[in-house]
């Protein structure tokens, strides 16, 4: 697990981003900090003046913040879940991808949780959950499952980082104190390797049900109510499918950017994008199937309150959002990714970008149209986000990018030891596995 010096030289490109920082990095970081500052000023005005500075009102009391919350929690499925599944399936092509995915999870989960605090208006109200929470409420299931997922994902990110941190401890002087603490005295002995491999395997199994539970529980916040177009039994799996879908898309975008910026073309090859694109294509079809089933069932029931929301989405005020969502999540990715000629890195980037936009719109039109057409005798209302909400949205995205950039400056964004392990034992293991799948070669005597 511990790369020898000569073999490590092969992968110095993975340490380069840590030891060398270009001016472009600082310019990008400064720009992102400006956006975050803008979001901070917006939040300050919300703290001082209250939620009145947002577009939220009655009956639409959930808007951008809750949309962002569901969206970010969805993106978080990029990492831990995909990484864990690929690890358990022993997919050899996972090696340059897993860490990039795991970092996305931890960062966006944090941002998802923060958006809930924004939506509370007064952040001190979060303490009510601690003091007076009721487990009958799906909101509290959310708090519990997201806390569990964030904890599990952080551990799952940290464990495979230990051998790489030890390499940095021995080779990099900047932040050496940090690497020394995090490395836990790693020397790559047989005993240490055994401990770490076993712990990673346990965590890979644990995080899958936890991840699935998180987005199911997020969907329960809506489906456990009797609101039109929310009260649906398939919301749990529908949300999980959407989450994995948007997660893969976000991962592809991150891969393209990291590959380009840090010149890691040798590690992230077209074949990696091809495999992820095929996964994205499958998820796009699955997403369409769930959407179709959800809307067809609602339409066939013909329940009057349900139909108001249904038609508002398909032909009414929300139709531009609905059809943009279908275009972005289904038609564009399927058209690009179905053909080998267009299933290139650029094609994957284009499809993923539309999917990320489409999935954000999907979260928006799940939440807002239902609230705009309440059962109570309120007039139907339209929700328009204010500049404060736009600023907070931009700030959330900027925080995500900045934290991701900072991570790449502190730790290898591609797992060094896993690449080395792939070179040293992966090939042999794969050959053994393929041999195990095939019928054993008959001996001359058994042929008779």
């Amino acid at each position, binding site marked *: 697990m511990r790369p020898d010096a000569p073999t490590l030289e092969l992968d110095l490109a993975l340490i380069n981003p840590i030891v060398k920082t270009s001016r472009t990095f600082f310019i990008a970081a400064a720009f992102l900090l400006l956006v975050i500052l803008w979001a901070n000023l917006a939040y300050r005005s919300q703290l001082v003046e209250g939620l009145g500075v947002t577009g939220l009102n009655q009956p639409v009391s959930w808007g951008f913040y809750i949309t962002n919350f569901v969206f970010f929690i969805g993106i978080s499925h990029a990492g831990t879940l995909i990484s864990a599944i690929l690890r358990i399936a022993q997919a050899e092509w996972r090696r340059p991808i897993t860490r990039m995915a795991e970092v996305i999870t931890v960062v966006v989960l944090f941002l998802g949780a923060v958006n809930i605090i924004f939506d509370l208006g007064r952040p001190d109200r979060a303490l009510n959950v*601690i003091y*007076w*929470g*009721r*487990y*009958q409420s799906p909101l*509290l*299931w959310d708090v*519990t499952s997201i*806390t*569990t997922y964030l*904890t*599990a994902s952080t*551990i799952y990110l940290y*464990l495979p980082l*230990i051998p790489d941190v030890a390499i940095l401890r021995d080779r990099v002087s900047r932040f050496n*104190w940090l690497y*020394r*603490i995090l490395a*836990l*005295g*790693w*020397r790559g*002995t047989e*005993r*240490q390797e055994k*401990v*770490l491999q*076993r*712990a990673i395997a*346990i*965590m890979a199994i*644990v995080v899958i049900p*936890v991840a699935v539970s998180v987005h199911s529980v997020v969907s329960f916040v809506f489906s456990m109510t009797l609101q039109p177009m929310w009260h649906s039994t398939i919301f749990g799996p529908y949300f999980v499918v959407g989450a994995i879908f948007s997660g893969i898309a976000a991962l592809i975008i991150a891969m393209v950017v990291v590959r380009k910026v840090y010149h890691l073309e040798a590690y992230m090859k077209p074949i990696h994008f091809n495999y992820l694109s095929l996964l994205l294509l499958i998820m796009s079809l699955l997403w369409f199937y769930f959407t179709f089933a959800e809307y067809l069932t609602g339409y066939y029931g013909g329940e009057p309150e349900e139909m108001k929301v249904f038609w508002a989405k398909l032909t009414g005020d929300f139709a531009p959002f609905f059809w943009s969502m279908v275009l972005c999540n289904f038609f564009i990715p399927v058209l690009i990714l179905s053909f080998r000629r267009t299933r290139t890195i650029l094609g994957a980037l284009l499809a993923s970008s539309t999917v990320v936009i489409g999935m954000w719109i999907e979260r928006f039109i799940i939440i807002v149209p239902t609230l705009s057409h309440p059962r109570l005798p309120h007039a139907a209302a339209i929700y328009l986000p204010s500049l404060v909400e736009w600023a907070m949205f931009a700030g959330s995205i900027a925080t995500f990018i900045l934290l991701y950039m900072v991570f790449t400056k502190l730790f290898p964004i591609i797992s060094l030891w896993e690449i080395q392990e792939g070179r040293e034992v992966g090939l042999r293991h794969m050959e053994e596995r393929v041999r195990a799948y095939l019928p054993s070669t008959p001996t001359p005597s058994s042929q008779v």
Partner: protein
Amino acid sequence: MQRDPRWVLYVQNAGLFLFTVFVFGVIGWIIRLIRLSWTLDDSPSGSIAISLIAIPVFLLLLGVVNYVFWGIRGAVEKEDSQ
């Protein structure tokens, strides 16, 4: 191989201690909510059902962290003592 200075071991121990406090804090919080629902007769069975899943998961996470922490650190101390 050079041994880590003593302050590094202290910080690592403090990290593990904080994580342990966090896990027991979450478990304590869940138990408190069960007690509250029990006292108010506010369907405590629901709270118990969720705690039956959440508490073991947190204990498992604590177990994994401890296993890695003492497994890796223990191997170093064993090697040094030899």
